[in-house]
């Protein structure tokens, strides 16, 4: 039932896992899948070995686990019929719902979810046997959330593949061999580019994420707020702060580089906040194509 202990697992990890398994065996639901105490401890050791959380105590990681769902996933991996029953009963609806929410199309959603089921069960598209994708779930978040994320990854993967094939086909049909410069894209003053690159690089990652999500991806304040778990007004304020600060610092750099204030202001005027040609979210919803799975990091 349980996998063998990782050879990298130190005695401290094993001890922590065994102690935690003893304390939480009943609530883990391991017994109903025929997983004994040692089996549960092995699962925990395996998870601890996979986690790359420097400075975090093993106990802290174990306490944060979605234990019952982790056990269910490992029981499914071991081929326990009852576990698969429970898995399907609990998550099938959520899987299809997530697929439909993303694809907005019944056929695509069903194909997406069915294909994912095949991977979860450990079957390839041609029916060959291989390891289940469930082995990548380590109880960091909820199993339902992990499934939604996997569906989303697959959906994005599908889009990426479709886009690549479409672009290639179009290029071949048009007889294009080399990419041509976009005539509508004006040359950027090297000083502006240098100043912008420096200031962007100096921005905190969270601010770059906010700017990219809002100005590049066309995400709304509500969407960003939902993802970050904060109020829309907080996102708005942070965005104002990030964009305003960026503009101010770039302008200052330009002037320090010898650019006249008026020209620097004109460079700053070169904005149109939501004029990006490609809105990824909208384009994704139009994408259809053969399914393939997002490649997880092996190991």
């Amino acid at each position: 039932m349980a996998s063998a202990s990782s050879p990298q697992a130190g005695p401290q990890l094993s001890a922590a896992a065994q102690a935690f398994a003893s304390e939480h065996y009943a609530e883990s639901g391991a017994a109903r899948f025929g997983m004994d105490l040692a089996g549960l401890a092995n699962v925990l050791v395996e998870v601890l070995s996979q986690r790359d959380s420097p400075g975090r105590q093993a106990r802290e990681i174990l306490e944060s686990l979605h234990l019952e769902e982790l056990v269910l996933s490992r029981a499914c991996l071991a081929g326990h019929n009852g576990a698969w029953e429970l898995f399907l009963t609990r998550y099938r609806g959520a899987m299809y719902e997530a697929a439909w929410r993303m694809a907005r199309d019944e056929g695509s959603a069903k194909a997406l979810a069915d294909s994912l089921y095949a991977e979860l069960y450990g079957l390839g598209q041609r029916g060959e046997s291989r390891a289940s994708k469930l082995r990548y779930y380590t109880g960091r978040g909820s199993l339902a959330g992990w499934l939604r994320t996997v569906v989303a990854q697959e959906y994005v993967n599908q889009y990426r593949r479709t886009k690549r094939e479409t672009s290639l086909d179009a290029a071949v049909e048009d007889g294009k061999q080399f990419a041509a410069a976009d005539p509508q894209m004006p040359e950027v003053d090297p000083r502006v580019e240098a100043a912008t690159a420096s200031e962007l690089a100096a921005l905190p990652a969270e601010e770059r994420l906010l700017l990219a999500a809002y100005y590049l991806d066309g995400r709304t304040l509500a969407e960003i707020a939902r993802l970050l778990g904060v109020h829309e007004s907080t996102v708005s304020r942070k965005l104002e702060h990030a964009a305003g600060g960026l503009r101010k610092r770039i302008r200052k750099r330009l002037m320090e580089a010898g650019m006249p204030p008026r020209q620097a202001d004109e460079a700053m005027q070169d904005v149109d906040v939501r004029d990006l040609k490609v809105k990824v979210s909208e384009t994704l919803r139009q994408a259809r194509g053969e399914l393939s799975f997002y490649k997880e990091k092996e190991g």
Partner: protein
Amino acid sequence: MNQGIPKAARELLARQRPAGEHPSADMLNGYVEQSVTAEEKSRVTNHLAACVECREVVFLASAAAEERRDLAVAAAARLEQVAAAGRSKAGWSFWRWAAPALAAVVVVAGVLIERNRIVSTLRPASTRTIVASRQPAPPAPVASQATGQPATQPQAAVSATAAAKYASSGEARAAKRAKAPVNPVLLAQQNAALEVAPAGAVAGLPLGKEERKSLPPPASQTVEVTSAAPLVSADSGLASAFVNTPTSESLTAGTAGMGKAAAPAAKPGLSNAVQLGLASHPQWRISGDGHLERSLTGNDWTRVLAGEIVSFRVVSVMGNDIWAGGSGGALFHSSDGGLHWKKVVLGADGEAEHGTVISIRFDTVLQGDVGIDSGASWSTSDGGQIWSRH
């Protein structure tokens, strides 16, 4: 946003490429659910800032999680819309997908009209909840519902009847004899809604006609409601829309026909899977006079928690985890299929709940919500140790 960022900045942002590999789904989900450490969050944020694909993933996953919670409200709004439009052809198109989701409306309607009447099921895929009323009424024959008559019986009872039919069918017996292992992939591909009403309702996924007709009964347990009071009050706009629309009919037809539909075409894996579920879990019900009862056979019912002075209103089943609630804020939990029970104190900061528990919903064994007839709700994220009121 009064001001944007320079075009050069946008172009540079767009040209960013993430260093290293994409974070795993586990890590991205942890980020979405905010269960990662500060160090992990920093790493993921850094990646997301430069990776448009992973940004799409987390936004899609985040939206899917949120929309799941919003579904009940959306279903209610759409129901009103369709009720106003009448039973047009377009309405039928709508009902194709809205059929299972309408179970959600029962919960919403129950809150909106503030009635202590029967409220039926809208539960996530993980739970199945039965709500009973103490106001008896003549039961409506299943056959009449299957032919398009207004539904006057809780849908869960219909599901249970169908499940019972299936259990007694020749196919079910054949499945019991079958030794083939369960193939969840087959199960998933061949049957649209393992969870029948709850899963479909929450999912809101448009199911094909054939799929709906081949819906199998609940796989892991069957439930039964003996109370036969009307689903909701007929003088409510929502209620009358609900009981008179084709939704009930199609749902009932789908479920009532399950035994027959599944029998000839069922694959060994499917039948075995369903039978496993039916055989290994007791059935639960709340009697018309407010008692929690359990049966292993479907015929002989045994009173559970008989010593408790509680008029039970709702029982929720999720695998071996059973939750039952009723008058006086009573809430009981069993994690071993009903062998042992623990009384759960529903309250916080020394203040106990005294209202009647009318709904129980658990997404996992740890995370759940309990609804009170006053409109209040309680939630827990640790299996009922600590509750917070909303």
